[in-house]
């Protein structure tokens, strides 16, 4: 059974820092590298800035500590996020969410549960204490 941290916070942007600090706290606890933390936080920021959450609902962030890394679930999201993720913009168009997440984490999945859709990101750590960037 993996350790789980769950944080629910209002959609308001001023609370995004709280979510980042939780991710930071976990990184400190597990001795993840600064670059690894940066990747996780940037992935989270990009998702939160995307605004693809169910209207009127709070945002929930779930962090699962696995043997080989961390899983980060954010939701509930709207189906619009799926479209954004599928838009792997080419270089001339910039950096879309799909491209960004593909660089920062190893896997990106949308799953249906608790009556909504959730985005699940997985980031591996080669070994504790020397977690390298993706």
């Amino acid at each position: 059974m993996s350790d789980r941290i769950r944080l629910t916070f209002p959609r308001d942007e001023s609370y995004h820092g709280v979510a980042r600090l939780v991710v930071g706290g976990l990184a400190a606890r597990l001795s993840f590298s600064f670059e690894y933390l940066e990747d996780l936080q940037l992935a989270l920021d990009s998702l939160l800035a995307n605004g693809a959450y169910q209207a009127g609902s709070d945002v929930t962030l779930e962090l699962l500590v696995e043997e080989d890394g961390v899983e980060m679930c954010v939701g509930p999201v709207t189906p619009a996020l799926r479209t954004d993720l599928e838009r792997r913009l080419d270089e001339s168009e910039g950096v879309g969410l799909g491209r960004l997440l593909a660089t920062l984490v190893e896997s990106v999945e949308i799953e249906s549960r608790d009556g909504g859709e959730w985005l699940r990101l997985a980031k591996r750590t080669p070994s504790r204490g020397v977690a390298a960037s993706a």
Partner: protein
Amino acid sequence: MAPPREAHPFSRGGCLGVSATPERTDRELLRRYHHDGDVEARERLIEQYLPLVRSLARRYSYRGEQLEDLVQVGCIGLIKAIDRFDVDRGVELTTYATPNIIGEIKRHFRDKGWSIRVPRGLQELNVKLSKLIEELTVQLERSPTIPELAKAASVEEEEVLEALETGQAYSTLSLSAPSSGDDNEDLDPLESLGELEPEYEVSEDRAVLAPGLRVLDERERKILHLRFYDGLTQSQIAQQVGISQMHVSRLIRRSLEKMRAEIATDTTDSELRAS
């Protein structure tokens, strides 16, 4: 193929929704208001410059302050600028209004007791951490962990996280700061505001770039390319570009924020045009 770039509200002589020769139109309206007491001309000017107020307000709404509240506050600055404007001086209204609008927003934050300035202790720790990350990356031949940084800085892990978080807030704030410069960037970008930003100047080569990318300068585009297309890590980019890793981190965040803001503005403009 991207549509031709329209003048950004911040570009010199930007159109702000006014067709043909905006400077002349502004000047005519200002004359009508100041010399003839035409209140309608004043209202038209306020309406024309609302996109500028909105753009400036959007940058400071990160504190949870409602955007609309900041737009209202910014409007007070705009009205003051219009009322105090000296038509006989050879200054554009945009140049005069921008610092007035920002000044009003700053005053608003100050009055509410929300200092924009980051506490000195955290500022110093942030600068110290930036250096330590460089040193430890070389020494350990890998990216340091938070406990390692805390130990090297002789502070608690929580303080490290707080100082790093300060850097994130700064990177959002620094949307308004010039994108060039070294690691010793002014930690209070609000202080440097009031001037038009060179990166918003519209140049020929940017006209063909897609929405978002065109607001980035060459270095920002290069860094995004290295990170998200070449797959280099922040420390590898730092080495290649010759700046600190923390600066790379800030530039990446700032670039993504700028792109998002630009795309959002484009979308809003398209919606307005369609309606």
